[in-house]
């Protein structure tokens, strides 16, 4: 049985999306997969990775109209007869959550979080999230003015973390430093800015997938060894830490999580207590790493959606190493012409 899966986030750039990793995992799963890339720009590298992505289409931006988005998918569906879409970008998830019923009617299946789950991933909802999953959250106070910040840091003490509403986090060791970061973040990202208690510890990531009914479809934990300037993991090592795995399973059972996710936590050095930092409501860019170690979550997801048996174990070895590297492809300007003028790579399908 051939299964056609469309995957977004095929921008394997310096701030990589997970799409190419998902396609590679699917191609190596033993299933007969036709992988369709959904790109937003003619230079997303995935478009040119013919060995793992069979064909790519340009999508309208999720910021445009919902109808346009549905129309484009309908268009692609007519040509490709899609079975599954795996959405892998935060910015487009809300639109998929919205149109999922329409897709189901077309015969396209997805496993994505509900709006309520998506809401909980908001940095300002960390307290609520931590209560729901029974994992601690570092104390934090949201601030919209310097006087808020002063009050907050008085309460939290130094050092403390100063974080933006979307991106960026700095460790401040004095009121002056905290103020500096506050102004810098506010200028770039606006308010609110979060002052967070500093906890001495290490950061870990766990990838997982939930079936939406509270059952866990497999988890895999890593310690980040090197990260890029944008905070993305570059090299990592697999670990087996039962407390961490237990905590992750609580995310799946406690929230009845639906779809792939990345659970970012901090483990306090002194106490080994786990603190939740964030949940990303989709597979992370390093999704191939667990697949290479026997926990092929994209394949399990596709099997679940297409009614096939799938494994749910989390049996993997610690000490596996992920080395990310950069590479160059040689293509022709006509390949670029193709995607940029017709919105699809390769022969234009009628």
């Amino acid at each position, binding site marked *: 049985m051939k299964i056609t899966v469309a995957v977004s986030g095929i921008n394997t750039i310096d701030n990589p999306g997970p799409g190419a990793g998902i396609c590679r995992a699917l191609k190596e799963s033993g299933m007969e997969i036709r992988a369709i890339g959904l790109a937003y720009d003619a230079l997303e590298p995935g478009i040119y990775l013919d060995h793992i992505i069979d064909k790519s289409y340009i999508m309208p931006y999720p910021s445009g109209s919902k109808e346009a988005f549905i129309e484009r998918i309908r268009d692609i569906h007519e040509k490709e007869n899609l079975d599954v879409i795996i959405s892998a970008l935060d910015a487009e998830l809300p639109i998929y959550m919205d149109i999922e019923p329409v897709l189901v009617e077309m015969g396209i299946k997805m496993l994505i979080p509900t709006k309520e789950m998506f809401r909980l991933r908001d940095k300002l909802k960390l307290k609520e999230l931590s209560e729901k999953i029974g994992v601690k959250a570092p104390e934090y106070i949201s601030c919209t003015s310097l006087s808020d910040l002063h009050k907050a840091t008085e309460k939290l003490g130094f050092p403390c973390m100063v974080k933006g509403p979307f991106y960026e986090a700095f460790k401040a060791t004095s009121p002056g430093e905290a103020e500096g970061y506050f102004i810098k973040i506010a200028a770039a990202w606006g308010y609110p800015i979060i002052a967070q208690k500093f906890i001495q510890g290490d950061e870990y990531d766990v990838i997982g997938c939930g079936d939406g009914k509270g059952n866990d479809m497999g988890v895999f934990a890593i310690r980040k060894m090197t990260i890029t300037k944008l905070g993305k993991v570059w090299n990592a090592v697999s670990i087996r830490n039962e407390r961490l795995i237990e905590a992750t399973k609580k995310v799946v059972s406690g929230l009845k999580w639906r779809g792939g996710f990345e659970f970012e936590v901090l483990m306090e050095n002194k106490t080994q207590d786990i603190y939740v930092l964030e949940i990303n409501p989709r597979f992370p860019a390093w999704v191939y790493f667990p697949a290479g170690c026997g926990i092929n979550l994209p394949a399990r997801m596709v099997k679940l959606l297409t009614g096939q048996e799938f494994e749910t174990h989390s049996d993997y070895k610690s000490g596996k190493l992920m080395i990310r590297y950069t590479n160059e492809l040689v293509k022709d300007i006509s390949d670029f*012409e193709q995607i940029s*003028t017709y919105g699809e790579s390769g022969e234009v399908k009628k």
Partner: protein
Amino acid sequence: MMDRDKLSVLAISDSGFIFDPVTGHSYTANATGLKILELLKAGKEEDEIKSAIMDEFEASDDEVTVDIQDFVENLKKYFLV
């Protein structure tokens, strides 16, 4: 006089895709745009281009005059003429 040397090297594809092998820039144009570009490349003056366009398409003199000017302004912006 308009300098048209740069136009002569452009690789123009029927799809509307244009590649400039000297600068590495690429462009997209529509059929009307391609037509004007070909005519410019062939050394035609704006008046000749206008009548060629009006022979082929249903359009008013005023509209085409303004549009050709606008198109050439765009080419200048891209340093193609």
